[in-house]
């Protein structure tokens, strides 16, 4: 082997410096110990010094659901055994989606210390945000579990549909997360933009109200991507049928956000170290 003369192989492994697109993603997945540790330490830091720790997440969701249930039982005269499980699951899913999206805007920017010191796959920072919100989701799932047991609603075979739904939503959130993180690193007012969009989305999504209550103006519903995300994850748990358009539209959103994020990332990734300065 004539490796002693480096001139003979001038093209050897510049790839360890600049990974390919798939190399970035696979590299980030392989660093799962790093981003799950960072995600867990983020949560721990947020609740450090409090008695309940991360169980505050569970408690505050329980309080929110309980308060809203009491008010809306009066307001809509909805039967609690239908309304409360739907509200709880919808809210917990919403909390996960909105948390992931709003924190994504700072995803790369808050990784500044690492990005400007060592070469890591950029997706590590997005995985960290999603993993952090998954940990919050796990704490909130306790409330869902209690509500389902309370109303003796035991999931049927339709629960299996949760798997494709979760995969599609994961793709959508990782893709949208990277897009928002890149725009958020370049433009610092992105965080406010996303926060106000999410606020509007919450009110036009069937979380605190039910879809059939506004049958007159359903276009508000059907143009709202959050409706399909919530439907795909909530209906399998409730054992109710998924809306006919949910799967095709979710697939469409996953493919288009996925393609857009990969395109944007591939085009602009070398600017990220300058953006976060």
């Amino acid at each position, binding site marked *: 082997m004539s*490796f*002693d003369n*480096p001139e003979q192989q*001038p*093209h*050897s*492994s*510049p790839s*360890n*410096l*600049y990974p390919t697109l798939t190399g970035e993603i696979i590299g980030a997945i392989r*660093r799962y*110990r*790093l981003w799950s*540790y*960072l995600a867990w*330490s983020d949560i*721990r*830091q947020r609740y*450090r010094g409090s008695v309940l720790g991360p169980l505050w997440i569970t408690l505050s969701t329980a309080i929110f659901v309980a308060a809203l249930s009491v008010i809306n039982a009066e307001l809509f005269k909805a039967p609690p055994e239908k309304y409360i499980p739907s509200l709880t699951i919808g809210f917990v899913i919403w909390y996960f989606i909105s948390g992931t999206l709003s924190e994504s805007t700072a995803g790369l920017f808050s990784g500044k*210390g*690492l*990005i*400007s*010191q*060592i*070469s*890591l796959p950029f997706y590590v920072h997005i995985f960290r945000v999603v993993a952090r919100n998954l940990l919050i989701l796990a704490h909130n799932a306790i409330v869902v579990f209690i509500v389902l047991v309370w109303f003796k609603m035991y999931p049927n075979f339709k629960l299996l549909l949760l798997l494709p739904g979760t995969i599609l939503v994961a793709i959508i959130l990782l893709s949208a997360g990277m897009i928002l993180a890149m*725009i958020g690193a*370049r*433009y*610092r*007012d*992105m965080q406010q*933009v996303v926060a106000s969009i999410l606020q509007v989305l919450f009110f036009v999504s069937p979380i605190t109200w039910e879809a059939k209550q506004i049958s007159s103006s359903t276009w508000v519903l059907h143009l709202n991507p959050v409706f399909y995300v919530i439907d795909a994850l909530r209906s399998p748990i409730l054992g109710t049928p998924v809306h006919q358009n949910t799967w095709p539209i979710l697939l469409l959103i996953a493919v288009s956000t996925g393609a857009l994020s990969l395109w944007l990332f591939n085009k602009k990734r*070398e*600017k990220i*170290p*300058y*953006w976060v*300065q």
Partner: protein
Amino acid sequence: MSYIKLDNVSLVYPVYGASSRSLKRSLISVATGGRISNHGNTLEVRALSNISFELLTGDRLGLVGHNGSGKSTLLRVLAGIYRPQIGRLIVRGKITSILDVALGMDPEATGYENIYLRGLLTGLSDSEIRAMVPDIEEFTELGNFLRMPVKTYSSGMTLRLAFGLSTAVTPEILLIDEVIGTGDAAFMEKAHSRIQQFIDRSSILVLTSHNRQVIEQFCNKAICLEHGRIKWSGNVSELNEHCK
């Protein structure tokens, strides 16, 4: 066999001004054809121009130059952080970059947790991290403080831990930015022999420092940078006559 080659590398560094950071302003400027906002808000700095050199195993390169001459930028190019727009860069070997000894340190976490975190950042396995612990315990002499959050440490203790963490791995290609020359005299003496051993374990070293003594002690080659260009390069013994 570690190897680094730069072939006519040039890098333009964009600096974003406050108003180009606003999405609203940028959208307005797109909608109006850019007539409202001034484009001059994103500066482009030519940080490196036509840099070419080659390093083989055993080379210890010192980068010398004034502030803003491009030393740190060049180190970040070698570390794979900045990607040059022009030229070619070949790096063979695993890179260990120490641009800041306190890389990723979490003041809320304990000393031991910080050892684990640094290990993860460096890409080590759990068993490799465990193997690193006794060495760091011995060097830092922090004892039970390693079980306490780093925010409770004095600045000297924090530096000891940061330094111990940074020098615990076995580097192949080692990039160091201005880390030597901090801390009190007693610590420096101890740190000195540790960094000497650390550098001895590496196959290629690239080091930046303002301190000529540091460069002379650790390096055998030197490059003098001025405004992002190589002003002079050669043997470290001739550095002082060619580079003021």
